[in-house]
Structures are given as C-alpha cells and as structure tokens.
C-alpha cells in the first residue's frame, strides 16, 4: 500500500495498456496517486514513462484499462461486437478533465504569438471565461510565483529556455490543476538553465501539490519525490521511496539502469 491509507486515491490507474499498432508500449500499469504525492517516474528511453504520463491526461487514449480521477472513472464502457468490453472516451469529457490535470512539456510549447502573460491568461480567458482584468491579475500571480513577473510582456522568442519553461509552468498553474504532470521538463535545456526550473518545481513540491514527473535527473528525483517508479518494458518494474529505489534497488534491471547513470550524486 502506497501513500496515506486514510486518504482516498486522487488518481487510480488499473490495468493500463497502450499499444501503437503492434508495439505494446504500456503492458498493464496499476498506480494510485494520493493528494500530495510527488512521484518521479524513471526508466530507459522506450520504457513507456512518457506514454504513461500522456495517458493520465488523455493526450494518448489508453488501449485498455481504466483511470479514475477523484473516484470517478473516465470514459464509459461499450460492448464490442464480439462481446468483449472496451472503454470509449468522449472528447468533451476529456477536454473538461484536462483542466484539472496540468501538463508541462519537454519542448515548452509556449504559444509564440502571445506574450508571456498572454500564454498564462489563455486558459483563464478561453477555457474558464474569466474577465480580462481578473485573468491578468491571476496570471501575474503565477508569473510572480515562477519569478518572471518582469517578463510578463515579453514574447517567448525573447526568453531563454529556462524562462520559457517557467512560463509554461505558470500557464499550467493558472488553471488550479489538482495534479501536475511534468514530461522531462529539463531535458531540452542547456545545463546552466536546468537549476532555475528545478527550483520552481521544488517550490511547488513544498506547497504540497500532487505531481508526477518523468525525469532523467536522478539526483533531483531523489530529493523531490515521495515515491519513485522504475519503468521497464511498459510495466512498473520496481517502486518505493527514493531511498529504496535509487539507493538500494532490489531488482537487477533497476541496478543496471542506475549503474549506467552513475554520473549523479545525491
């Protein structure tokens, strides 16, 4: 049993599978996320860790399995012609659900035709239909939180990679998501810019937010996470506290993976 036993799971994943054609990327993932959990997902490239994250906010539709958010299963069951059961997902339901699960991408994906504050306001204005003044005030709060209030009127082209990623984090935070997903948020950054982004993520952890982070920064994962998942071949191969998984791995594959990443220090 993971997390706090008195708390109901905020997110519950059961039997999650994802296939791209013949290629089975996820082969049965079970996971419970309790409010306040900080989960680091590690594994070699191709292990399915990004796909797992992208299934959680339905950027990818699961091939099989079910996902519950706050006790409510996403999608509905439909009986196929052969009698087997599949889950179907209505786009409108997924669109509503994604407001509650924020995502930060490896490539930032800022909207280049909008200023920094325009990027952060977009969800407030277009999705939540907040008045302009209110949205602007809220966006400024989020930009301040990531230390970029003075860059509010800059276009993304004039920001560094680290600043872009912090704006992207502010953009996700503006919608008050219950869960934050980080998909290798520092992997496309120059080394000297990684620190400022990790500092922001660490400050969010201190606020007690529920977060899942796919990362290659094992040193950061050690300090950040309340739980570490090691994925291999589309399944959770080993999981536990950072101490258990990163310092005293039981499984041979985890040990081999960590041995290849000796370059990190705790």
């Amino acid at each position: 049993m993971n997390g706090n036993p008195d708390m109901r799971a905020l997110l519950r994943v059961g039997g999650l599978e994802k296939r791209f054609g013949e290629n089975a990327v996820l082969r049965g993932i079970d996971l419970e996320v309790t409010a306040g959990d900080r989960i680091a997902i590690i594994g070699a490239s191709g292990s399915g860790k990004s796909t797992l994250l992208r299934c959680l906010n339905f950027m990818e539709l699961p091939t099989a399995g079910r996902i519950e958010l706050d006790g409510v299963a996403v999608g509905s069951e439909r009986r196929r012609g052969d009698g087997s059961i599949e889950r179907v997902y209505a786009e409108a339901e997924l669109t509503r659900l994604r407001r509650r699960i924020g995502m930060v991408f490896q490539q930032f994906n800022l909207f280049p035709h909008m200023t920094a504050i325009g990027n952060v306001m977009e969800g407030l204005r277009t999705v939540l239909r907040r008045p302009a003044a209110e949205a602007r005030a809220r966006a400024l709060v989020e930009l301040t939180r990531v230390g970029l209030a003075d860059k509010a009127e800059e276009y993304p082209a004039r920001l560094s990679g680290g600043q872009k990623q912090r704006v992207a984090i502010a953009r996700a935070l503006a919608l008050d998501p219950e869960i934050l997903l980080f998909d290798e948020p520092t992997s496309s950054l120059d080394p000297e810019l990684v620190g400022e982004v990790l500092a922001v993520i660490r400050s969010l952890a201190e606020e007690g937010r529920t977060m899942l982070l796919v990362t290659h920064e094992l040193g950061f994962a050690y300090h950040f996470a309340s739980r570490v998942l090691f994925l291999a071949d589309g399944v959770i191969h080993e999981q536990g506290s950072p101490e258990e998984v990163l310092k005293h791995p039981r499984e041979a594959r985890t040990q081999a993976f960590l041995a290849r990443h000796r370059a990190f220090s705790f």
Partner: protein
Amino acid sequence: MEYQWNFAPIFAHSDALLVGALGTLRIFVVCLLLGLSLGLLVGLARYSTRRLLTWPAAAFVEFFRNTPVLVQIIWFFFALPILVPFEISPMTAAVLGISLNSAAFSAEIFRGGIQSIEPGQWEAGRAIGMSYAQIMRRIILPQAIRRMLPALTNRGIEIFKMSTLASVVAYVELLHQGRLIASLNFNPIETYTVIAVAFFLFLYPLVRATYVLERRLGRSD
C-alpha cells in the same frame, strides 16, 4: 512614321472610367471576402480527419482548380439560368466563378498553413482544456495566417486581375469600360495603356500595404 499619342479623348470619358473602377473594386472586395472565407472553410474540411468532410472538400478543390474561371463565368451566366428558375446577373455569375476558383486555391493555402504548425501547439492547447475549435481559432490560425500571408497576398492579386474576366458577361468594370471607350474613339493603344496603368496603380499600393502588415505581424518572432 511615329505614332502620335493622344490621351485627351480618354480623359473626356473619365466618368465612364470611374464607373468601371468602382465596378472593379466592388467585385474585387466581394470575391476576396467570399473566396477567402469559403477557402478557409474548405481548407478546414480538407484538414479534418473525417472522411465525410475531406472527400467533398477534395472534390471541390480539384474541380474548381482544374477548370478555367472564364469557362465557369460563362457557364454560370449562360447555362445555369436554364437549369434554375431565376435570373443570374453578370455580377453574380462573375462572383461565383471567381470566388469558387479562389476558394479552391486558397483552401490549399489554408490547409498547408495549418499543417505547418508544430503538433506541440495542439498539445499545449489540449493540455489546458481547450477544445478543437478554440485551439484552431486562438492558437493555430493566428500563427498559420501569419505564415500564409505572402501566399494569400498573391491570391488577392490574382482575384483583382481575374475581375477583368467579368467583362465577358458585360459586367461593368475597368476593362469593359476601356473596350467601350476604345471602340468609340478608335484609340485602343491609349485606352488599354490607361487601363493597364490603372490596374498597376490600384494593386501596387495594396501589395505594399501587405508588406507592412507582414512586418508588423512578424514582430513577435
């Protein structure tokens, strides 16, 4: 023997030229608006993943790209009235021919422009809970149109020049008036020179204006 240029008879008909110029402008504006907005709709249908939309859109594009506008205008003016129970004015026939042809070409421009936007932009929009229509309107099209502006400018120029084809069904525009003046005064050289220069004087400032627009839109890049 050297030709003696004489523009005086043409300027005696400047009121007729003005009427023609207004006719040209009117059909240009109507065809530009109709052609580009219909082109956007067809382009969106072409981009869609639903066969029910892409197939008719593709058929529309191929049909109107591969038939001459002149033939379409003549068909709408002379053939269509026999098939339908109402009159088709020269303006209507010309607008139909030019707009549908422009829609077909600009649909391909819109589709290409939309496709050129990185998939990450769609993902970012979806991740904050935006719908397909919201992402298209707020994120994709503003960026795509910026990239398409040179191609759309060319389309606009084409539409302006195609307006002369309306003269074939006796729609009153610049070329139609020129032909009238030339036949009254037996001075085709001067008349058609004036018409050509008039088109240049209309179009060139318009094109300059779009350059300025392109520069202004490019500021954020």
